[in-house]
């Protein structure tokens, strides 16, 4: 074959050089479909002269003599006809797109058409999340897919995101899904030192072609022991055959704080604080208290009561929260010619937070290149390089939260000026400001410096070789390389570091994660109706994580902020850790007559994290689909245009535990005596430790009505986590406090519903579509060890209740006669002083019970208006900031105006807010902000995205030689509806000093040549 080609080429050279006028060339090549299967019988002919033509052979190959300068037409049944300008090429292979537009879905280690899918896989296309001012794609998919719960941990740009697919299954092991970008299994651990640094922020979301979420075990079990929490596959854009496309993209905008809390003026605070002091003095029955005198000395005031009336109120929240800028620049070039296709892009993104000091800056570079080396051998490489820098809110990671403006700014006593008359900060050390919260938090922001720099390279190289017809071998090597450098400098001018004249803590870490996958894929169709697809593969992955850190204090002046200037080294540290995984896997799929599909998967997988006795396990799954609408009785039915039943069962594993928790070890960290290092046992040898098993059953229906004007799917699932990893207490007399064992069980049951409707599609071009999804989920701990009903050490884990159950004493309101807070005891009686051990009960659920989103898109002649709502209901959370904001003068700091106005004042008053009381605890009572009093409903629905765009019509652009121009304005988090009484209901963990979510407005332009 090669010889013939060479000969032909030489001949051709001779002919063209010797006989100028004779301009005939021989073109050969191959025609294949998107999956790389050859298309036999495709017609290849010269445009305008059908007499020069030939049909491809059984392997899809052709050879044809054509006049120079011709244009080839390639056409085949069920495929879109393609025209190719020959130019001076002699070898032209091409890929034909399916005529019947079958959606391509990326699944484990291959792609399939949507028709073939038997498991629960959801997909969103990159254009849906295009140009959202969000730093990581996990943020952008929030509310877009049923079954996937996405929660922002904070409003810090580039902050970690919590993603839960079909609920929370694990208590001790991780609950994060496996993220895979272009085949590279990522490490999504947050290594941020000073701030939340989401490793998934390395990827510019605009480079994404599609995101697939493998939700059930049938889809995910090919990833074995890492797939228990689902798998998210990200595919980035590739070049397509054709001339180079150059695209520019720019947007800018601003960030706005969503809300400030309503707080008291100096005079209102005086009223409530004096009430609190007087109430306590009266209740304690001691000598009468000079309440006004006590109050004045407390706020260091030496004037008359009239002057108190004139005290100004300063708004610290105004200084804490701020407007910020958003800028995003991108350029990409993509295309394909001959045997080569390419996509190259670069971007710069900058976004401020809505509070001081918080920002995000990222530069990325991307190159995806494919090269068809021979007819059988294809080479691909994907390269992503990225660096992002985040300035950090000082107290997010460490430091005293009392010095953090996100906590203290609404609580600082309002009579405190922020600045002195000369413009310098009020109340900085050795002085302080009035009240219990005595740090000038704005000065803290101005002086302290903290940041994280993350640099990342995610790259792969793939070679695929067609061994025989239908049999392809694919060899894949990928790497995910990351460094993180974090710094925190506490300035000597702030309270935290005044006595030690500055404190620097710094860390430098590196994570190298590589993997290789070797797969064989075989497809064959027998006698038209039987199609067999088999996948067999092996995989190896290793990760090494290491770093060093240091701490230094006593800096000569605040101008010196690096370690060499610190006089007193405090500590140095270093660590190294690693794991390995290996596995083989196989999948066989049988498709009969495009109606009945059966698929079975098996993975044999091992992880170094487990005990030597249980390192390897088998993860099977089986699934099937019945395309009912392909049956004769439904075929061509316009009402029910599509109907497909899917069912699956399978098992996956969870190995998200520490790297060395199963191995008997002696450690040395922090162990020293008399200036010399020491060792001692740190981990109990636990050779039986194994993975958690997630067993998922899925039953689903995909449907299309009225010629697919209405399309949707319903998935019902039961996900049972068996062999749940739990720490079982050991008697400490054994030298160890607990052992991790595979005991216990958790179940998630739910229904996910996706719907897409074309509501209006009028002839004049007006179109209105709606996308809607909702998930209902119920989580339940079904078994712990030793017949325990409650997990020792965590009262929120109770058999028969969801993980994250909120268990505390129940606050039930105020005694109208006395204004005292009342609670319920275990028998339901009203009491003042509940005891946690006796009276605590289940009062709430920390996880959302139903969530989802919906989008309405209106388009008309190039105009498009899209509004996307996202919602989460049934989540209770403690308002930990609220427990301070609700004190109403119980201690010397400010309070929430709503609580102030509703407080009990006179006997008989019916209210939910107890009377103010100094110290918050009435004699013989419990703290009035305790128990469930500050438990709030964190449910919300918000207009997450509102976009108005105009795309110029192609004929208008032709004159200026452009292929596309799009302009748009966009708002993020424009409206939020919630009962939550803090800054914002979207956070994970406590909300004490969390940076709240922000509102963003952007305008942008995209244009291409």
């Amino acid at each position: 074959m090669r010889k013939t080609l060479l000969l032909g080429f030489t001949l051709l050279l001779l002919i063209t050089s010797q006989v100028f006028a004779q301009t005939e060339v021989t073109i050969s090549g191959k025609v294949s479909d998107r999956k790389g299967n050859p298309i036999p019988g495709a017609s290849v002919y010269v445009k305008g002269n059908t007499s020069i033509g030939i049909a491809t052979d059984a392997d899809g190959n052709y050879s044809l003599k054509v006049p120079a300068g011709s244009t080839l037409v390639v056409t085949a049944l069920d495929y879109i006809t393609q025209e190719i300008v020959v130019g001076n090429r002699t070898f032209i292979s091409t890929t034909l797109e399916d005529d019947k537009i079958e959606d391509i879905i990326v699944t484990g280690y291959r792609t399939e058409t949507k028709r073939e899918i038997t498991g629960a896989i959801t997909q969103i296309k990159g254009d849906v999340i295009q140009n959202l001012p969000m730093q990581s794609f996990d943020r952008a998919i929030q509310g877009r897919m049923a079954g996937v719960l996405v929660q922002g941990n904070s409003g810090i740009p580039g902050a970690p995101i919590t993603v839960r697919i079909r609920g929370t299954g694990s208590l001790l092991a991780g609950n994060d899904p496996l993220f895979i970008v272009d085949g590279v299994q990522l490490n999504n651990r947050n290594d941020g030192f000073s701030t939340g640094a989401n490793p998934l922020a390395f990827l510019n979301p605009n480079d994404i072609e599609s995101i697939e979420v493998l939700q059930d075990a049938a889809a995910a079990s090919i990833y074995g022991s890492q797939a228990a929490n689902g798998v998210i596959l990200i595919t980035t854009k590739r070049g397509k055959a054709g001339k180079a496309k150059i695209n520019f993209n720019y947007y800018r905008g601003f960030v706005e704080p969503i809300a400030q809390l309503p707080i008291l003026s100096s005079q209102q605070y005086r009223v409530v604080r004096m009430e609190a002091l007087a109430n306590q003095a009266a209740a304690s029955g001691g000598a009468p208290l000079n309440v006004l005198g006590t109050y004045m000395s407390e706020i260091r005031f030496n004037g008359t009561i009239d002057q108190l009336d004139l005290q100004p109120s300063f708004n610290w929240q105004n200084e804490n929260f701020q407007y910020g800028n958003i800028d995003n620049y991108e350029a990409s070039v993509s295309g394909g010619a001959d045997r080569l296709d390419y996509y190259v892009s670069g971007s710069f993104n900058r976004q401020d937070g809505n509070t001081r000091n918080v920002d995000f800056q990222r530069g990325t570079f991307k190159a995806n290149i494919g090269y068809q080396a021979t007819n059988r051998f294809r080479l691909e490489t994907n390269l992503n390089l990225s660096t992002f820098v985040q300035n950090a809110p000082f107290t997010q990671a460490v430091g005293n939260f009392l010095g953090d403006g996100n906590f203290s700014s609404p609580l600082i006593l309002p009579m405190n000026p922020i600045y002195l008359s000369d413009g310098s900060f009020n109340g900085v050390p050795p002085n302080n400001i009035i009240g219990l919260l005595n740090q000038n938090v704005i000065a803290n922001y101005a002086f302290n410096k903290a940041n994280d720099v993350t640099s990342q390279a995610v790259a792969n190289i793939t070679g695929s070789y067609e061994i025989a017809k239908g049999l392809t071998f694919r060899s894949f090597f990928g790497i995910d390389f990351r460094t993180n450098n974090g710094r925190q400098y506490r300035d000597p001018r702030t309270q935290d570091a005044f006595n030690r004249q500055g404190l620097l803590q710094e860390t430098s870490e590196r994570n190298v994660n590589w993997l290789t996958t070797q797969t064989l894929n075989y497809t064959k169709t027998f006698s038209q109706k039987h199609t067999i697809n088999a996948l067999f593969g092996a995989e190896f992955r290793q990760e090494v994580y290491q770093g060093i850190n240091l701490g230094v204090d006593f800096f000569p002046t605040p101008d010196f902020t690096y370690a060499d200037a610190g006089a007193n080294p405090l500590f140095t540290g270093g660590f190294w850790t690693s794991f390995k995984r290996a596995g083989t896997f196989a999948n066989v799929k049988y498709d009969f007559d495009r109606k009945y599909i059966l698929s079975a998967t098996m993975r044999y997988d091992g992880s170094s994290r487990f005990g030597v006795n249980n390192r390897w396990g088998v993860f099977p799954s089986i699934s099937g689909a019945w395309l009912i609408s392909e049956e004769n009785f439904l075929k061509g039915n316009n009402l029910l245009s599509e109907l497909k039943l899917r069912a699956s069962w399978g098992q996956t594993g969870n190995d998200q535990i520490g790297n060395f928790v199963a191995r008997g070890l002696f450690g040395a960290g922090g162990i020293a005596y008399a200036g010399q290092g020491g060792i001692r046992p740190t981990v109990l040898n636990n050779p039986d430790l194994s993975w958690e098993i997630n067993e998922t059953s899925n039953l689903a229906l995909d449907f299309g009505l009225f010629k697919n004007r209405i399309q949707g799917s319903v998935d019902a699932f039961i996900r049972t986590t068996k062999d749940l990893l739990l720490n079982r207490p050991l008697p400490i007399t054994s030298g160890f406090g607990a052992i991790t064992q595979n005991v216990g069980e958790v179940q998630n049951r739910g229904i996910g519903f996706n719907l897409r409707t074309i509501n209006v599609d009028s002839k004049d071009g007006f179109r209105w579509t709606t996308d809607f999804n909702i998930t209902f989920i119920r989580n339940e701990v079904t078994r712990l060890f030793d017949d325990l009903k409650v997990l020792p050490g965590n009262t929120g884990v109770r058999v028969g209740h969801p993980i994250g159950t909120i268990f505390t004493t129940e606050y039930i309101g105020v005694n109208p006669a006395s204004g005292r807070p009342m609670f319920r005891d275990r028998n339901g009686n009203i009491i003042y002083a509940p005891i946690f051990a006796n009276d605590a009960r289940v009062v709430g659920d920390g996880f959302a019970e139903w969530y989802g989103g919906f989008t309405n898109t209106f388009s008309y002649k190039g105009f498009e208006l899209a509004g996307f709502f996202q919602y989460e209901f049934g989540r209770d959370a403690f308002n930990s900031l609220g427990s301070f904001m609700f004190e109403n003068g119980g201690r010397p700091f400010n309070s929430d105006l709503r609580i102030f106005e509703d407080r009990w004042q006179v006997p008989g008053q019916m209210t939910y807010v107890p009377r103010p009381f100094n110290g918050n605890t009435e004699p013989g009572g419990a703290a009035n902000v305790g128990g469930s009093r500050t438990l709030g409903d964190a449910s919300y629905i918000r207009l997450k995205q509102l976009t108005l765009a105009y795309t110029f019509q192609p004929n208008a652009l032709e004159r200026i030689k452009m292929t596309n121009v799009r302009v748009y304005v966009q708002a993020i988090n424009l409206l939020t509806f919630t009962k939550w009484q803090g800054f914002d209901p979207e956070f994970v963990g406590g909300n004490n000093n969390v940076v709240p979510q922000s509102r963003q407005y952007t305008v942008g332009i995209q244009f291409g040549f």
Partner: protein
Amino acid sequence: MKKRVLNILLAFFAISSFYSCNNLLDVKPRTAVDAATALTNEVGLRAALRGAYDRLQSTDLYGSSQIAFAEALSDNGRGRLANGASTNSGRLSAQLQSIIGAHMVGWSQYYLLINQLNLILEATPKVTDLSPAVRNSIEAQALFLRALAYHDLVKTYAYDPGVEVAANDRGGVPLVLTGVLDAAQVTFPARAPVQEVYDQIYKDLDEATAKLANAETIPAPAFANAAAVNALYSRVALYRRDYTTALAKGNAALLAGAPPIVASTSYTASWRQQVHPESIFELPFTTPENIGVNVSLQSYFTSTVAGQPNTVTGGFGDLVINDIYGNQLFTAFNTNPPGFSGLVDQRSTLIAPGAVFRGNSVLRELTKFYGKNGQINLDNIPLIRTPEVILNIAEAQYYLGDEAGANTNLKRILDARYTLGGSAVSLTFNYTGLALLNEILRQRRLELAFEGHRFYDLKRNGENIPRPGGLPVLQYTDIRILAPIPQGDLDANPNLVQNAGY
């Protein structure tokens, strides 16, 4: 073509079957070593021994609580607030008020330490290339530490021999003498009788003594040598009311190289040196081991900074000298031994007013732990000093009927602590009967004040304990004399019985 396919397939299967072996998944940690190989050579054993000593520095043990909590549970200290029953930081308040459950907290750390020692003691005989001097040194020190741990446990969680309250007596503490490295080795022991625990402590100390007869030189006071072993032995025997042994081992300690007691004129300076010159056994602390402002002994006991006026604030000054209730420590410092007057107790030179900002300036703080290692909150902590041994001997002699001997040893203390007109004294006295015992015990309180002894000395003598804040005297028969065993351990071990009343 077919052959090529076959070859590739075969190679493929070969690779994947190679994957299936366990070695492929073996990752050796680098910041830790395998338990199986950690203790198989001399350097490993020595490192493990240092790891055991290091455990004593824990804030649950002698780094902080074993001393500070014992003082707060006794009548030596008071807090600033609520008439002496509450403290500036809130820490120690519960112990001062004898709130049920607020007690010593050493259980877990001591048993973790005991497992470390058991592992060392099991591993040492298996290391064949150790010289006898090294082997004996390592084993003797491990036995000493195990004896110390068991004694601290038994005196905290059980009644001392001779003063049992039968109704509340639940026995001693579990005796675990084999090491645990593997899940299969975990046991669920019951509490051994008190006498059995003491027998084991004696056995360990006897063995340690024997091994030290042929051992390398051990660098005291950071590491335990023969003086430390005998000194601990004399203390243990005193608690056991085995006065013959207490006397013999006390004398042995003094002969085995216990440092001499310092003269009265050097007393103040002795508490300003990094290493106390009277220390037989002392925990050294280095800069990275600074316990910090919350629970360091300096912060607990003082609020000022050494060398600075009391307008400069240092620690919290939570527990200061009792000058307010019951049998006041402050009065004791200012009371001369019977028959004397005008003597100045040099130990009172360590008393200083607290920091103005803490409201402690009218209170009396004892500055034994005062950043003597050159940094605030950084102090070496003596666990056994020579005067304790002398007082052990004197008490034993008293009970053995040797009043002359007891007077002689008491004189060694008095002469080394009192001055007259700024000069050293040589006092002449002959106390008898209860007056002698009382003065020995009074001197013990003064000498070892704020070093973690007072509560245990009251307890072993079956004494009631006065409480501040107008709270009633804590009767010796009260369940709060014994510490509660941590609930987690009771949950995990069905054979373990909680102390009465908890």
